[in-house]
């Protein structure tokens, strides 16, 4: 049984958030990879953009930060220079500036630091599953996939438990700012430019700013020097510190980015288990070695961050087309991860796939996901604990996808299980 079949006509409008509400328009990406590996899209909300769909091209371009800059915005939406300065994080910088900030936070997210969280993650998973599975029927995105990253964010940033639900709601309002289920200020339906200096052009950005400022003030008063937030505020070797605004933007980034992508990877994995029961059998019957490859295969399959945008710093030619300086280029990781030239049977889940050079974390460039080890560990441990506890898992109603061309995910996933 197939997990899901794309239903677009091969010519989906990639600039439209609505093109993604029934899932990724993979027929369009398949056509582009075959016939038009560098294709122009018009957009009625702003400047049009180029689309890069092949795995090989994405890899080659992603590392070339001299040609394709992140310092002009990383999503399709246009920003003025003023807005860019107000809203940017180190995601919106290029090396060597990017590398300097990255080094400040790299320790907190390194594989060895993150591996120390494994027991905590497992305890949280056991708690979440214990509470949810007994119901028999539930929404796997809301009740399982959303719960773990939210709680881990709290642990890693040292935030009080009672604030987490509020924070994640705000994080969703930022990153899912094109979906009316997550925000009252839907990006393409906004009538005011009141929030244009805030992260993601969202009022939730303003609220998170205030929260971050209060949090740091309270910490300073207590003399609390633990955790990533403190690390961020320390001067580097040259004595430079990050500004108040940079700090608050980084806080928003952690709340937003650390949450939904892991959530949608877990959701996509559970969705796959519902429709291909042999995967559940494989996971249960195999030894621990299967997890070395299965986790990344589920993440390839999910590809929650569908693209990042870059901006050309000069004119260049590619596939017979002329890209002009200042034009936007979208690197469609979600398409690269289904590229027949890079993967055997890319539309199949192969839990033993190796090597698996997927691009779900933006591999191959300086902006590779900072939370890569945390995300992998969370997905792995949650699925390990789930597999131990369920005999069967099946779909139990209509699923719903996020309205976004940036983050792809199943926001509602009704399932029915029988416990082991």
């Amino acid at each position: 049984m197939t997990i899901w079949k794309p239903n677009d006509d091969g010519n989906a409008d990639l600039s439209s958030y609505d093109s993604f509400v029934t899932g990724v328009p993979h027929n369009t990406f398949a056509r582009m990879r075959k016939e038009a590996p560098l294709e122009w899209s018009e957009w009625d909300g702003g400047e049009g953009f180029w689309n890069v769909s092949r795995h090989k091209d994405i890899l080659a371009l992603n590392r070339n930060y001299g040609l394709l800059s992140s310092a002009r915005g990383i999503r399709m939406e246009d920003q003025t220079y003023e807005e860019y300065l107000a809203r940017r994080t180190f995601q919106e910088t290029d090396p060597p500036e990017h590398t300097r900030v990255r080094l400040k936070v790299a320790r907190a997210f390194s594989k060895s630091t993150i591996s120390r969280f494994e027991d905590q993650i497992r305890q949280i998973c056991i708690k979440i599953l214990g509470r949810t599975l007994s119901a028999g029927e539930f929404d796997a995105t809301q009740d399982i996939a959303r719960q773990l990253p939210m709680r881990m964010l709290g642990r890693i940033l040292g935030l009080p438990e009672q604030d987490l639900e509020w924070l994640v709601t705000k994080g969703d309002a930022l990153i899912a700012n094109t979906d009316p289920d997550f925000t009252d200020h839907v990006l393409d339906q906004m009538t005011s430019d009141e929030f244009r200096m805030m992260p993601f052009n969202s009022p939730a950005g303003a609220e998170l700013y205030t929260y971050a400022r209060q949090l740091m003030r309270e910490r300073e008063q207590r003399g609390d020097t633990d955790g990533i937030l403190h690390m961020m505020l320390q001067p580097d070797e040259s004595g430079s510190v990050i500004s108040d605004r940079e700090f608050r933007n980084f806080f928003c980034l952690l709340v937003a980015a650390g949450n939904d992508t892991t959530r949608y990877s877990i959701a996509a994995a559970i969705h796959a288990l519902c429709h291909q029961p042999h995967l559940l059998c494989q996971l249960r019957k195999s030894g621990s070695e299967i997890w070395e490859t299965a986790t990344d295969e589920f993440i390839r399959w999910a590809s929650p961050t569908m693209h990042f945008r870059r901006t050309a710093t000069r004119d260049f030619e590619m596939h017979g087309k002329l890209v002009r300086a200042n034009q936007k280029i979208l690197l469609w990781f979600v398409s690269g991860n289904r590229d027949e030239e890079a993967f055997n049977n890319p539309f199949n889940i192969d839990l033993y796939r190796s090597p698996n050079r997927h691009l779900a974390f933006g591999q191959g460039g300086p902006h590779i996901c900072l939370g890569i080890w945390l995300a992998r560990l969370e997905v792995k441990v949650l699925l390990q604990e789930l597999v131990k506890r369920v005999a069967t898992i099946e779909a139990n109603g209509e699923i719903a996808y996020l309205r976004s061309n940036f983050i792809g995910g199943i926001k509602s996933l009704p399932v029915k299980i029988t416990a082991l």
Partner: protein
Amino acid sequence: MPTITWKTSETESITANVPVGITLMEAAVRNNVPRVWGECGGCLSCATCHVRPVGEWFGRLGFPNDMEDDMLDFTEVEREDDSRLSCQIKVTEEFDGLVLVVPE
């Protein structure tokens, strides 16, 4: 093309002819050397291409600059005095016979 060997365990190794001009990380990825992932493509963002040149090779490959030195603090297997990030080293003709240990 210089011949390069990666020692991946006490008993196992991978030897390959490597074109001049690519980095030692790219060479390892092309030859599926385990544990050399090169996830950031050589941009000093990930520390997943950690190798240790054997013996006198360490000095012959040059020395890490400040950024590489900082990033070496975040390798999965703790760094040693001769640790390098292989994305920062370009292959030259002089590398023929080079042996690298992939820490585990």
